[in-house]
């Protein structure tokens, strides 16, 4: 269980998260959606202990403010929005960094397995810095996967925190990465993902938290959150939620009246 209560974050004088509470269950993919600058990344960073915040965050009943980095690393992996690299590591060496702590031990055979998983078999010996943005993003995902390879450990769920994991990817790889997250959740792990693409979110997420201006407008099953009214209010434009038997829920911005809400 992930439970964040009364999270408040300020940068200087500006408060960007106002008393936000958020919860996520293991075995589910929980998405955080909202417009640019609404505080999605900041909420995620508060929940992984990366920004100073008011309120408490408990992960598997551990207060993350008190836990040591290696204890947290054994419980959860974090994929940031972008990851620069200081030295010319190869792809395999970057992924192997995920193994350096604790639970996955020195299982080097996870490196090629994780690379194959993210569709980068054959990339092992390439230089990370010479890859495209989308390829780098998948290398980082492979690294995070090696860190928390088994979705549960001794019955306790492990967690993936993903910040816009598919924003740099083409549609084929978007589906691949979302499926990896889906599989992780289906195997008993917990996934919290900041998402940009509402249609992908509707396809893959069990739960959605909709954030706007540093507040949670709604959190619940995606059918309950993805309504014309809530989305239009959050994104300041008219959004239409459609459902067809063939493709499930999909959303369209109402082009003719964009900005009119």
């Amino acid at each position: 269980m992930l439970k964040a209560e009364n999270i408040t974050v300020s940068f200087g004088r500006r408060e960007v998260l106002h008393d936000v509470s958020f919860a996520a269950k293991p075995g589910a993919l929980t998405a955080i959606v909202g417009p640019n600058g609404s505080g999605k990344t900041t909420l995620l960073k508060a929940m992984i202990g990366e920004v100073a915040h008011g309120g408490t965050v408990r992960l598997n009943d551990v207060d993350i403010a008190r836990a040591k980095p290696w204890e947290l690393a054994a419980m959860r992996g974090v994929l940031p929005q972008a990851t620069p690299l200081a030295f010319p590591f190869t792809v395999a060496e970057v992924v192997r960094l995920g193994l350096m702590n604790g639970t996955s031990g020195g299982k080097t055979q996870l490196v090629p397995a994780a690379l194959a998983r993210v569709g980068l078999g054959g990339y092992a010996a390439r230089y990370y810095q010479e890859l495209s943005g989308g390829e780098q993003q998948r290398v980082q995902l492979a690294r995070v996967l090696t860190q928390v390879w088994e979705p549960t450990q001794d019955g306790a769920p492990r967690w993936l925190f993903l910040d816009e994991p598919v924003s740099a990817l083409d549609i084929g790889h978007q589906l691949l990465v979302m499926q990896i997250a889906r599989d992780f959740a289906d195997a008993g792990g917990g996934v919290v993902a900041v998402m940009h693409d509402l249609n992908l979110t509707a396809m893959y997420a069990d739960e959605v938290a909709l954030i706007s201006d540093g507040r949670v407008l709604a959190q619940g099953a995606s059918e309950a959150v993805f309504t014309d009214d809530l989305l239009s209010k959050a994104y300041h434009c008219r959004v239409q939620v459609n459902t067809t038997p063939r493709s499930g829920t999909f959303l369209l911005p109402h082009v003719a009246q964009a900005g009119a809400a």
Partner: protein
Amino acid sequence: MAYAGVSSAADATEGDRSQTAHRLTYVLLGVLAVAMLASLAIGASGTSLWQALWDVARGAELSLRDRVVLFDIRLPRTLMAAAVGAALAVSGAMMQGLFRNPLADPGLIGVSAGAGFGAIVAIVLGGMLPLALSDALGYCLVPVAAFLGSWATTLILYRVSTRKGRTSVATMLLAGIGLGALTGAVSGILIYIADDAQLRTLTFWGMGSVAGATWSKFWTAVPLIAAAILTIPFIARGLNGLALGEAAASHMGIDVQRTKNVAILAVAAAVGAAVAVSGGIGFVGIVVPHLLRLAVGPDHTYLLRNSALLGAALLLVADIISRMIIAPAELPIGIIMAVIGGPFFLWILLRRRGIVDM
């Protein structure tokens, strides 16, 4: 969507240079041994290492002259050149890992100057210390002061140039220039008020050389250098994690603050000791780690220890050249390293692979 979930053991190491880097350690040990023997064998006097070894093997007595040349001149000089080379190369590699930048060299960004400043303060003002304290420190006074100087410099540079876990090289270099100007000015004042004996010490010390090696110098430097080298296993993983940024390192389980503290102390100890006994010898800290990264990759588990070995060997070779090139006179080793390192540095700048965020 088909994933190849299983993998054979063979491709588990594809693209992973750690085995090669590990084996390189043994090669470098061999290289270092050869360089040390060469350094013991070569010198201005007629003493022959081989003749001496042969004499000892036969059970004959060494002449007093040979004993002095080998044990009191060449041996401390050899060991000190190796220790200083290892210290400079390791501190370069550590500093680059810490600053996440392959151009962060203690000489370049003013850490050596900070150490030099500490040494000058100790030499000129050391006499003003309470007698009990200066007696207790004894020969260690200059190295300890140099260590404090380089530690303060590193700390200030890191604070100034690192924002939100990212280091700006431009800020780092400019801060180094600023600090250098300040310490240079104060050093100037100190040199102005120094008496004749202190001036002689300062001149002798500032020449950038291992020529004046003695056992007492060697033993004052070695504890600090050894301490720095012994931290390698404790910070190598942390520096690897830091390559992805402080936040990512922490999420991988690294105690980032501890890694930074230990690395800064280790750099300061190594640079302080090296500068205290040899003046400033530049470029070792940038040339050695860079070559090793090109050859076997940037994994600090191997980079740091290989840097120690290659740095020691490189400085021994430079020292041998400095003794031979205008024999029987000697060229200061700092000049040799500058002639090798200067063009090398420009070459790094030209092919900037792996340098991000200039």
